[in-house]
Structure formats: C-alpha cells, structure tokens
C-alpha cells in the first residue's frame, strides 16, 4: 500500500475508532463517507452515533446513506491528516471535495484525536517534499532545466523539478523534455541523501543512473541546501486545550426593538421612521444614525417585498448564540418590503427550496412560524411568490 508522509490510508482508518473522543460526540449522528482516490486509496465509512464511532471499509461501489462525503486523493488525505498539507488550502485549490453536510467536517477534528503516523525512517517522498524549502535561487541564476527524479519502490514516485529564472516548480511525473534524468530506487535515494550511500558507488553499481546534460547534472548538488534529517521526526508535544466557552446572557430588547418584536407576534412588521429624513429602519433602531435624532414613529410595512440581493452561504460556521454549527447551504437576503424605498431593506432567510430559483427582483412573502414569541424566528423564512 502506497505510503505518503510516512503513513498509509489504511493505517489512518485502522486507528480511527481508537482515536474517538466520546465526550465531544454527544448528540452527533452522522455517517461520513471517504472516497480516497488514486494509488493507496480506498473507500471507508465512519459512523458516529450514540457517542460511539464505527469505521468500516466499503468493498462495493455503494457507500449507502451518508451525511457527508469527502473525496480526495490518498496523498492529500494523509497530508491533511498529519498536518503536512494545509486543509483549507487543499479545499481552496479543489483537491478536497465535500458533499452533503459541511458542518460535520468542521466537527471531525474534535471527534477524533489527531492521527500520528508510525514513527519510521524518512521516505524519498518526504525528501522530495523538502525541495522548495531547500532550493537556493541564487545558485539557479541563468539555469533553465527540467530535472527528473524517477524513484522506484515504496515511498518513491516520479517528479520533475523545473528550474527557470531562479525559481523552482515541482511537478508530479516526469516531463517529456528532461534536461537531466535520474533513476534510482527510492530506498537508495534516501540513503544517498542521508549520506549512507556513496554516489560514486551507486553509479558504479548501476543503482543510480543519470542521463541527459551532464554539465547541468554537475550543478545539481548546488541547487539545494543539504538535506538534514530532523532528529525527531515529530517535534515535542504541544499542549492544546479545547473548550466551548458559554456564558449565559440576558439580552434586553429595550422599548424600540421590543415594539418591533411584539409586532412580529401578531404577524406585523413595523419599521420606525426618522422624523427628519423620513427613512424607515428595519429592524428599528433607537435613532436615525444619519440625522442623529430619535426615530419614534412606527409604521407597518410589507409583509411582501422584493429581493435586493441573494446570498447563498456554503460555509458552515457556529451560531454564537447557541454554539451549534449551522447547516449549509442557507440563503439570506436584503428584502425591500412594500412601503420601503432605496436601502431600507429587511434582512432575513430565504426558503431553502427556493434558494436557486430566486434572484434580485424576485417577489417574496414571509412564512410565519406557528408559535411566535417575538423573535427573528417568528418568520421562518421568505418564500417566492410564484
């Protein structure tokens, strides 16, 4: 099984259940499907329910019902798992794809303690990964070359280092027009880099083959700072304390917001009006900020209106009023209720089923909650008037 960053996908999932943190899994009910593609990949299903976690390998093509599905290649999966690849960047660049409920993904680091690969020697792949940080631009001035690394065996692979204008770009695979190509077993490559194998011996024994422009091959050792194995592959343990801090609050409405919220109970939306400029505020605020005077008069507006903008949010984040993660996607909109003008809009949710049908200018109406308490939730959402 292919190994990346000193670990295999198999090993990550084998240890998954042992890394489960039941104390943080209360109330979590989810099935996460992992489709790990490419060499060293496979399919797994992790079920978290009743404060227990069960990890199973999926043999057929069907995952069954899942809450969330994560698709990525084995290298990225392990890289993110062990912290060698930035998860956000991998998601940003599209190497990790997520279907279904995003909030579970945000929860995973809390549900399982971090995976640590079995401590073992460094792999050829690990050393290749250090190329960018060891690259010496000053030594590459005027050099325009594609250098191949054909490293066979476990922990190996094929790479091309493209050096141009003092910059290095690493590519997977061997380029077509290599300036220099080096073929060596992955294990031997590691030994060469660690100084355990003499390059001349390796060439003499035919274990290392260098082809192409030998003038360029000669400058190769200068292009990179010496590889220095870290004495301890993992640094010292660094302590982290995880906690959801929660402080109970009593938010006063005051008379202005209070009046507005009271109106919602009776299925009425009240704006307050600036006595000076006449603008209407939703929800009402104590003063008109522009005219700096109290806005005392209330007028009923809406309840129907027109969407001024539609924002569909795909990013799962916690609700600071409860600490719970929100379900995505959801849509909010600034709605120009009947009786309002210009920017006098009203901020609320759009019905989930209408999300992809509505657009700027769509006419909408509120859907009222059955029981209303005088809160933002008295309106469930706005739906399209069809």
């Amino acid at each position: 099984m292919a190994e990346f960053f000193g670990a295999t996908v198999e090993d990550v999932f084998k240890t998954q259940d042992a890394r489960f943190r039941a104390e943080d899994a209360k109330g979590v009910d989810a099935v996460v499907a992992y489709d790990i593609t490419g060499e060293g990949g496979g399919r797994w299903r992790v079920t978290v329910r009743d404060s227990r976690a069960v990890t199973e390998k999926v043999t057929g093509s069907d995952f069954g019902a899942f809450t969330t599905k994560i698709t990525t290649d084995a290298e990225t999966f392990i890289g993110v798992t062990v912290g060698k690849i930035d998860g956000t960047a991998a998601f940003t660049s599209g190497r990790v794809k997520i279907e279904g409920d995003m909030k579970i993904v945000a929860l995973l680091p809390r549900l399982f303690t971090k995976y640590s690969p079995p401590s073992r020697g460094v792999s050829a792949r690990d050393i290749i990964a250090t190329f960018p940080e060891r690259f010496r631009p000053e030594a590459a001035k005027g050099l325009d070359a594609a250098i191949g690394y054909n490293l066979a065996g476990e922990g190996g692979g094929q790479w091309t280092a493209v050096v141009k204008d003092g910059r290095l770009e690493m590519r997977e695979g061997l380029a077509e027009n290599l300036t220099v190509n080096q073929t060596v077993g992955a294990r031997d490559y590691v030994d060469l880099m660690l100084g355990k194998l003499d390059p001349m011996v390796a060439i003499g024994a035919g274990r290392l083959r260098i082809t192409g422009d030998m003038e360029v091959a000669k400058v190769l050792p200068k292009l990179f700072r010496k590889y220095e194995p870290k004495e301890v592959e993992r640094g010292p343990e660094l302590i982290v304390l995880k906690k959801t801090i929660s402080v109970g609050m009593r938010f006063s409405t005051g008379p202005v917001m209070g009046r507005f919220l009271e109106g919602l109970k009776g299925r009425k939306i009240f704006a307050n009006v600036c006595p000076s400029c006449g603008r209407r505020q939703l929800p009402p605020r104590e003063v008109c900020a522009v005219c700096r005077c109290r806005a005392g008069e209330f007028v009923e507006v809406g309840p129907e209106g027109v969407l001024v903008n539609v924002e569909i949010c795909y990013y799962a984040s916690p609700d600071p009023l409860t600490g719970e993660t929100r379900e995505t996607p959801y849509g909010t909109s600034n709605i120009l209720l009947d009786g309002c003008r210009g920017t006098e809009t009203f901020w609320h949710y759009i019905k989930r089923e209408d999300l992809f049908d509505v657009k700027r200018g769509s006419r909408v109406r509120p859907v009222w909650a059955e029981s209303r308490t005088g809160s933002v939730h008295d309106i469930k959402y706005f739906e399209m008037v069809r």
Partner: protein
Amino acid sequence: MDATGGKRGEQQTADEEHACCKVVEGKLALPYQYFAGRVGSRFIISLRDGKRILGVRCDACGRVFVPPRQTCERCFSDLSEKWVELSDTGEIVNFTVVRYEDRHLPRKPPFVLALIRLRGADTPMAHIVEGVAPENVRIGMNVRAVFADKTTNCILDIDHFEPV
C-alpha cells in the same frame, strides 16, 4: 452571585412605561482551542507525566518564577531554556475561601484558593487547597501538591494542595 444587590427580574412586572420591553435569554457561546506553547507545554507535560513542578529562572534578576513564562517581564530576557525543578511542597502565603457559586468555578463552594510559594520558587502560585477545613487554613501552612489522576492538560494536573 447576587448577594450584593443584583435582584434580577423582580422589576419585570407589568410596567406601563416598559410595556414592550422584554429580556431574551441567549448565550455567548463559541468554540476555542488554546495553545500552551513550548514553554507551557513542557511545564504541563512535566506535571502530567512526571509529577514534577518546573519553574524558570531569570539570570538577570535571579528570580525563579512559577507558573513559567518565556520572558521575564522586567528584564526581557529569554527564559525558555532556564528550567529549574521545584519542590512539590510549599507554604501558603495568602488565601481566600470562595463561597459564591458560579459556573466558571472548578469546585462547589466553599473551597480554598491560595497563593502558595513552592520551595525553590520566588513567586507564589495560585491553587486550590483541600484536606483542611476552610476555617483552619492559615498563612504559613505547609502544603504539598496532590497530582490529578486524569489529565486536563492545564494547571489542574495538580488536582490540589493539601497540608503536609
């Protein structure tokens, strides 16, 4: 803690002027993860795995601090490698008895919070004292650290101090 006059809710009877005013229960609730850093981690791991209390010494002013810190706030010298092992016993130099009930407190009241100067340290450290009735705690009392069975990765890896 309302003993000092915070009588909440009592005015929330019908009041003409405040007819529309109400109070909505909510929370300030968000997830956090705090990092102890290298210096703090070494201190906590030493408590957790070695049952040993470490301090740091500032060579410039000669003081030994606990809890540890990376920098001497006065001399601005780097203390991150200046570890000294401290005794797990020390002397109570100051204490209070917490008698109010709040959710942030680690114990049911009443419990004793003390400043304890460990042998080998110059600065006393705050901690909980148990195994003695609050009314019998005295300044100058010798106490010993009792380490926690289960780690919480913080200062409570010393569960409490108790009289020697």
